[in-house]
């Protein structure tokens, strides 16, 4: 099946007992660029990856990777997909050099220069056993090997989790190198600064549903911050439907609003609030506000206050 999408799901649903991990989830990811996948814990990201890689069977819907049905991926297609998980699972019982050699033999399209360029960011002694590498070294080694496979699609599932600042920086530097390659990257992370730095596209998944798919800029344009005097809080909270969350900071209330930049000030005016102040929003804050709406539902304000 020829398709422009490296990844495609249609009405995907997955149940674990009574829990619905994915719910009518439809997503199409175009070839090229870095696509950040964001969602809170349990949102369905890992389930999505496992279905895409064929390790889980959906209860309904379909999934395809590089145009091939995920439930029947051929070895050739698997060879075109790189996958790095948060644990950087590697066989710890062999030497790094031996593992690299084995990996090299698996992939005929192995690019030694890419491996060298990436591994140069990490202090990996190839004579060491893999289990004795530090977490950062292991992550780098894993990334270098995965990139050297020259994958068309690279799936990174929270690869920087648990790395220290230096290791994380090195990892991201190495990953940036990848943006020069002809590889589409699906990058799953909770670290917004990483997403901000890397992502060309922002995919937000929550409660098993696709909530947003756009560029980070477009997403930021959708979320706005309004600062209102504390006395108006109750009126705003009750009357404005597009409100994502609110936070009390030094006697002022910060309202995060979705898709309502112009209408929001008008609505505030109708409520008799004529002095609202608009302020720029960072991606981190915007995503947090966006997700908190979905988390809190009707009870969002109380959580906002607590925050």
């Amino acid at each position, binding site marked *: 099946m020829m398709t422009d999408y490296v990844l495609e799901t249609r*009405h995907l649903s997955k*149940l674990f007992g009574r829990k619905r991990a994915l719910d009518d989830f439809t997503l199409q990811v175009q070839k090229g660029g870095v696509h950040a996948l964001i969602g809170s814990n349990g949102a369905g990201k890992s389930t999505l990856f496992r279905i895409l890689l*064929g*390790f*889980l*069977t959906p209860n309904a819907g379909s999934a395809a990777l590089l145009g091939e049905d995920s439930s029947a991926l051929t070895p*050739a297609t*698997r060879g075109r997909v790189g996958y790095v998980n948060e644990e950087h699972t590697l066989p710890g*019982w062999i030497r790094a050099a031996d593992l690299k050699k*084995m990996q090299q033999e698996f992939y005929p399209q192995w690019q030694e220069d890419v491996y060298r360029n990436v591994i140069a960011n990490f202090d990996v002694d190839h004579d060491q056993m893999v289990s004795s590498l530090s977490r950062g070294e292991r992550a780098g080694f894993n990334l270098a090997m995965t990139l050297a496979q020259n994958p068309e699609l690279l799936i990174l599932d929270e690869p920087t989790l648990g790395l220290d600042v230096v290791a994380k920086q090195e990892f991201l530097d190495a990953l940036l190198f990848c943006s020069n390659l002809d590889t589409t990257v699906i990058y799953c992370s909770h670290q917004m600064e990483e997403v901000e730095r890397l992502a060309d596209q922002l995919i937000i998944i929550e409660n098993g549903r696709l909530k947003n798919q756009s560029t980070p800029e477009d997403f930021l344009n959708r979320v706005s911050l309004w600062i209102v005097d504390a006395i108006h809080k109750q009126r705003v909270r009750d009357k404005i439907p597009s409100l994502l969350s609110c936070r009390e900071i030094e006697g002022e209330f910060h309202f995060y609003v979705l898709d309502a930049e112009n209408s929001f000030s008008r609505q505030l005016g109708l409520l008799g609030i004529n002095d609202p102040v608009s302020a720029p929003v960072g991606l981190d804050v915007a995503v947090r506000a966006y997700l908190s709406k979905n988390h809190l539902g009707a009870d969002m304000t109380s959580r906002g206050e607590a925050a």
Partner: protein
Amino acid sequence: MLNLFKTEMIHYWKWTTGFMVLHLLVLYYLNFLGVNLYKPPQAMLLLLGMMIIALVGGAVQILLRRKPSEWAYLLQRPLSEKRIFLALAAAGCCHILIIALVPGLVMMIMQVGSSPYIIESRHFALLIFNIQPVLIGYFLGCFVAMSPNRLGLFALAGALVFINVYMNSWIAYFAPFMLAASMALAYLAFKADLSRPYRHPVALVLTELPIQFGLLWGLAMLMMIFLELQWAANGSPTRDPRPGTDFYYLQMTPEDKMQAALAASDDPRASFFSQQVTLGEITAVRQRERLSHPQRNQFPVLDSNLLLLDEERGIRWSFSHNTMLFEGRNINSNEAVGWLGSEGFAESRVSAKPFISVPWVTANQFVISDDTLYQVDWNQQAFYTRYVNDQGGRFSDSLGVTENITTLLSEGSVFIFNSRELLDHDIALKPVAEMTLPVDEGQFGNFMHILELIDGYLVIDQFNTSPTTIGADFDLYGRAELRLYYLAPGQETELISSMPLENTLEGVFVYNGLVLAPGMRLLSDLFFGVMLNKQSLARTLPMPFATIPTAVLGLTVLVSLLSTAIVFILIRKTAMPKNIQACWLVMTLFTGMTALVSLLVGYYWRKQDQLQVVEVSHASE
């Protein structure tokens, strides 16, 4: 694939080495204690232990990989799933074989020439053949760890039955089939999504049958517990049997049995015999052993009584299958001292005449080959041929010597000798009577007793007594008989009384397997029939030949239809492919309740997601 194999080999080499050394130490210690490692029960226990280790090893190998991140690392590579499995399984088998084989081989090589037991090529052959049950254990362990059916553990029931039969008779020809079947189970279960039900009807049926075989045994066992509880409350038919039933007669003394048979006889001599029964002494005929006809080069675990001991001279005479001679060795120095063949003792191997068939040893004095009874006189270091059976039918290991009479069974006859004549080798030994065994005698309930009369012998025989295990042959139930024979020297055997005995057991005991799972019952009969090498089709597959009551047949059909209806209700809402749904329905019609239980507990109950039961919510974003 080779790389993955190498990785897996490196992964477990420390554990493998540890277990191998431990195994070697255990064998060495047992050998040091003078234990014969190749005889039951120690040989069986060692094999069973290895099989369990292999089973756990297979399960652990897969379970360690089942963690999502490990599974993704294993599968996400340009290699087909089946080749990945082959690499893992090949490495797993190598590890298991190193643990199982190397210590055994080392021990055998150490024992050659230095052990009181003769180590021959058949010992090495046993080692090779025992690889199969060990690998069966390994693959079943893998299957249990991967089976999408949560009742995968029940597949072990078939293996347990097999290993029980294998250990009792070391059936070599059936092991490759079982090995192939267990490999197929593991091979089919290995897929990227382990929890995904099988999509091909053949895979579904192949993996379901062993599980349902185990379920049938489980259900039958539950039924047995239920019956036992009921019997505990209301009286057990086997422990407190009704008069006239086979178990009632089984509990009688031989004297009472003879009297009962004589009372039912219309023979004019019955009252005269009855008087002699009251006065005479009854002796039991020693039954043949389980493996009473040894084959040359058979597995050493099948050996029994192949040693003679000359205590006075301190010499152990061990029979060698290679030379077909007893080889004498000094107990203390292990030095070879001579040979014993069918024509007596010899100093050199060349001058000793080999036995034609593998003989048995009884009472450290009698040696019995297929057709000849020999006697050893240790004082005079002499070897006598006492009796040659020229009527055909091999002697079995059943020489029973009592004060007055001695009995010996052959395949078709019972020979009765005078004990005094037997013990005195200067007297030419001849049977005082000979009885032809009934040809319709089944495998259960051979209870034969002999009474010496003034002018002959009375032999009472109760046979075809109902088996007391659920799932035994239908055709044996209700066929028990009590027969009384009169033997006179030089005359034909005379049947003077024949009493058919009622069946002790209730219908529910006999037919529960049929009602619960007719198809599984049919297949399990076939399994046992083939595995036990039963000779007639009626004994191999008794169900079609049995006279089954109409009510039982009706109940069987009802249970099957009801199970099929429930399965239909359970699967109709699932996203299961239509051909798999049809397969489940047909299978349930055939296997009845076991299929229902397998689907309900194995897949459906609290795990509907496996069957892809889904109600998609179309809530808007």
